[in-house]
Structure formats: C-alpha cells, structure tokens
C-alpha cells in the first residue's frame, strides 16, 4: 500500500461525503442550510481536485512503472484493461459536476428555499449522483487493488 493511494482515496471519499452532506441540507432547505450547503460544496470541489492530483501523481509514477504490468500478467488482467481505463477517465467527470453544484448554490442561494424549489430538488439529485458515482469509483479502486494483490499472490504461492 502506497501512502498516495491513501491520500487519493481519502480526498475522494471525503469529497463524496461532502456531496452527501449537500444532499441532506437540501432535503428540507432553509436559508441557513443552503448557505451551509454552498460552503460544503466548495470544500467538496477542492477535495475532488486534490484527489485528482494525488491519484494522477501515483498513476503516473508508481502505477505505470510497476503495478500496470503486474496486474496485466496476473489472474485478473481486466482489472487494468477495463477497470483502470474506465476509472481514470470517468473520474474526470466528478470535479466538473461538483463545480456545477457549487455554482448553482452560490448563484441562486436562498432563492432555492422559496422561489426555486424545483431547482433545489435538481441540485439535490445532482449532488446525490456525485456521491454515488464517487463511491462507484472507489469500488473500482478496490477491484484494481485486488487485481494487483492477486497477481502478487500468484507470484509468491
């Protein structure tokens, strides 16, 4: 286990939880809850970008150098050929979706409480989607790690 994987996963999961927090604030929005959701969404955007940077650094240094070849030679080569390939691209959707949530909360603010209830509901759904997609991607990370671990076990045993 490399510490950069921990940082990448930690930032990503905290970012996902930030958007779960946004969902909870928007279930029954008040002025205070919308203001809090805006700050939490901003924090979530920063966390997802940090996850992108740390994950990217690990991917370009350790993963490309050693892990990729190991997985491809192991019993589950699809862990790289399908899962890593999908994860490394689909992950890039998240920070931009997160900016949209933050931008709408920032722009409409407390208008979401009375005048724009349908918009608040849509932002809630988008935040929930970010949360679910983030944890789907975390699950892909688990499959990639399992692919590498199985390849190592095959070598040792």
């Amino acid at each position, binding site marked *: 286990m490399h510490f950069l994987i921990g940082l990448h996963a930690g930032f990503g999961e905290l970012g996902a939880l930030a958007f779960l927090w946004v969902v909870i604030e928007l279930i029954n929005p008040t002025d205070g809850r919308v203001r809090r959701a805006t700050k939490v969404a901003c924090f979530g955007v920063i966390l997802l970008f940090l996850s*992108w940077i740390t994950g*990217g650094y690990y*991917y*370009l240094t350790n993963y*490309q150098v050693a892990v990729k070849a190991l997985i491809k030679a192991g019993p589950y080569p*699809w862990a790289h*050929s*399908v899962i890593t*390939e*999908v994860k*490394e*691209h*689909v992950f*890039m*959707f998240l920070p*931009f*979706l997160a*900016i*949209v949530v933050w*931008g*709408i909360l*920032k*722009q*409409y603010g407390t208008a979401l409480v009375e005048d724009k209830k*349908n*918009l608040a*509901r*849509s*932002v809630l*759904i*988008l935040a929930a*989607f970010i949360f679910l*997609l983030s944890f789907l991607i975390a699950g892909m990370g688990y499959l990639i790690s399992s692919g590498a671990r199985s390849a190592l076990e095959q070598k040792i045993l």
Partner: protein
Amino acid sequence: MRINTTALVRSAVATIWFVAVAAVASEIYAPLKNFFVSVARHHWTGKSVFAILIFCVVYLALYKMKESDSPTKSIRGLLIHTVLAGLLIAGYFIWHYLSA
C-alpha cells in the same frame, strides 16, 4: 461575482464529452494519443490539461449568454449526458478487452 449557471452546465457537458471521445478516439487513433503525450508527457495528463482548458474556455465563451429559463431541465440534461458518456467509455473498454 455573478455565475452564469447555464454556461457552467454547458461547459461541464462539453468537458464530459471531450473526455469520453478523447478516451475512445486516442485508443483507436494512435497519433491522437501521441499528441496528448506530446502536450504533457502522458496521454492521461494531456487529456486532464485539455479537460480543464475546455471547461474554462467554453465557460468564458458562453459567460455572457442569457441564463436558461429552465435550469432544472439543464441539470437533467447534464445527468443524461454524463451517464451516456460514462457508458461510451465503459462500453468501449469492455468491448476492447473482450475482442483482444
């Protein structure tokens, strides 16, 4: 600072489709992959740089446009585009693995 949320949604849609099309096209057409490598030493970094650039450029280009009367519809569209783009990426790499 005023945020144009319609421009924001459209720039997110443009960025998401760029990522999806670049992911598939750079696998099919090697010179495109090499171009991304030439930009930032690795094709994934090249795509990341372009994704951020496209998001910023499209947002700035559309910043002065009129806000949509139905932002709810725009968000629904964004979700649909995201799912379709994700399916394109997943579908291509599953097909590519199975047909290898």
